[in-house]
């Protein structure tokens, strides 16, 4: 195995382009575990830890740019992630356990595209965009179109994730992430990320994403629309939840059967909506 520590994004891209089966090393929390288990054997590791721009967080009037190498621990503590953006902070707070949050990075979570972890789901609910650098420069991709399958992204082999844009969202919007797991720290059985904007008692905008229920975070526009224009009553949530449950393609595993996961979706959606709407939420 070869190893490199580029200092710039461009050097990193050139290294990826020059080697078949190269992998970017971010925090290592997943990649090194996969290497130990024999699930990954990269020909080259391109460590991103010396590329300074990847660790920056920048606030603009439209939202927050979070560098790919920013760790979940930092995201969980960043109070600028409020309102709709709070969904991402909330997901980072609940992700795995403290030592993983000290190591794992936002870019690593996106690049890994594990549909069972928190950050991809939260970023879909937040309508985040991913900045990707490649040989012909940088492009901005909606996070939803980056995830194409379980552990698969639309990234080219010579591309790397530089930063993620989390938009501020509509005025007055709130975001929340809720996970249900057998034990704290384990992967969730089902997770729900949502962003809501109310106008008085009526929901003006809604965006819901579900984790652990398919190869990529589940987002169903019809379910969002079922909530919009309603007071988010029991019936509204139950029907939106049913739309999501019908579109879900969960698997049976040790954390729950597919049927159980489908049953959980509407119930967790209701709880997530209540939590997001709590006045103290912030």
């Amino acid at each position: 195995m070869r190893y490199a520590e580029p200092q710039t994004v461009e050097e990193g891209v050139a290294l990826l382009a020059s080697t078949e089966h190269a992998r970017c090393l971010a925090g290592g929390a997943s990649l090194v575990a996969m290497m130990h288990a024999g699930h990954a054997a990269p020909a080259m590791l391109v460590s991103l830890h010396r590329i300074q721009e990847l660790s920056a967080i920048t606030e603009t009037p439209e939202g927050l740019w979070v560098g790919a190498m920013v760790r979940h621990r930092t995201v969980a503590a960043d109070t600028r992630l409020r309102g709709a953006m709070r969904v991402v902070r909330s997901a980072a707070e609940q992700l795995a356990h403290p030592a993983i949050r000290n190591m794992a990075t936002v870019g690593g979570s996106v690049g890994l595209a594990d549909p069972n972890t928190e950050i991809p789901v939260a970023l879909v609910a937040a309508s985040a965009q991913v900045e990707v650098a490649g040989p012909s420069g940088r492009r901005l991709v909606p996070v939803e179109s980056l995830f194409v399958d379980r552990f698969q992204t639309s990234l080219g082999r010579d591309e790397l994730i530089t930063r993620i844009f989390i938009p501020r969202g509509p005025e007055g919007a709130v975001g929340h992430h809720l996970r249900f797991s057998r034990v704290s720290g384990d992967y969730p059985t089902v997770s729900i990320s949502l962003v809501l904007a109310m106008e008085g008692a009526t929901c003006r905008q809604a965006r819901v994403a579900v984790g652990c229920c398919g190869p990529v975070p589940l987002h169903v526009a019809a379910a969002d629309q079922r909530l919009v224009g309603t007071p988010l009553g029991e019936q509204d949530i139950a029907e939106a939840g049913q739309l999501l449950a019908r579109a879900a393609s969960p698997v049976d595993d040790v954390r729950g059967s597919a049927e159980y996961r489908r049953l959980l979706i509407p119930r967790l959606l209701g709880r997530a909506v209540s939590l997001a709407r709590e006045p103290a939420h912030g």
Partner: protein
Amino acid sequence: MADKIPLSLTINGTTHTLAVPPERTLLDVLREDLRATGTRRGCDQGSCGACMVLVDGEPVFSCLSLALPLRDRAITTIEGVEQGNALHPVQQALVQHGAVQCGFCMSGIVITAKALLDRNPHPTVEEVRQALGSNVCRCSGYAKVVEAIASVGGRP
């Protein structure tokens, strides 16, 4: 066999000069190259916390930390926790509370507790439980461990 790359690592204040292949973890370096076996190998998957060390004061899994990116970082292992020849207050409290059992998980727990107390000298029981979320004791003897750590800060 991959080529070895020169590396110097600062562990418990001492700088060690080595040459390691890229896939070598800090845990491998500690246990096999430096024969510092206080840091335990448990799951090798970042699930059990037996291999916990501090990097710049924060608990991380040495089994998931490749050695090469750790140049220029301050690493603390269980061997660096004692103060002179005296046990660290966390270690004393664990002994006093009878919270050591088989001891396999203890290196990692002491390291995690030290990081917590360095950052938050008076943690609540709930904060101790949260901080220990990355450490698994297969004997499941958490009650006395939590009690002992919380007692160090005076909020049992």
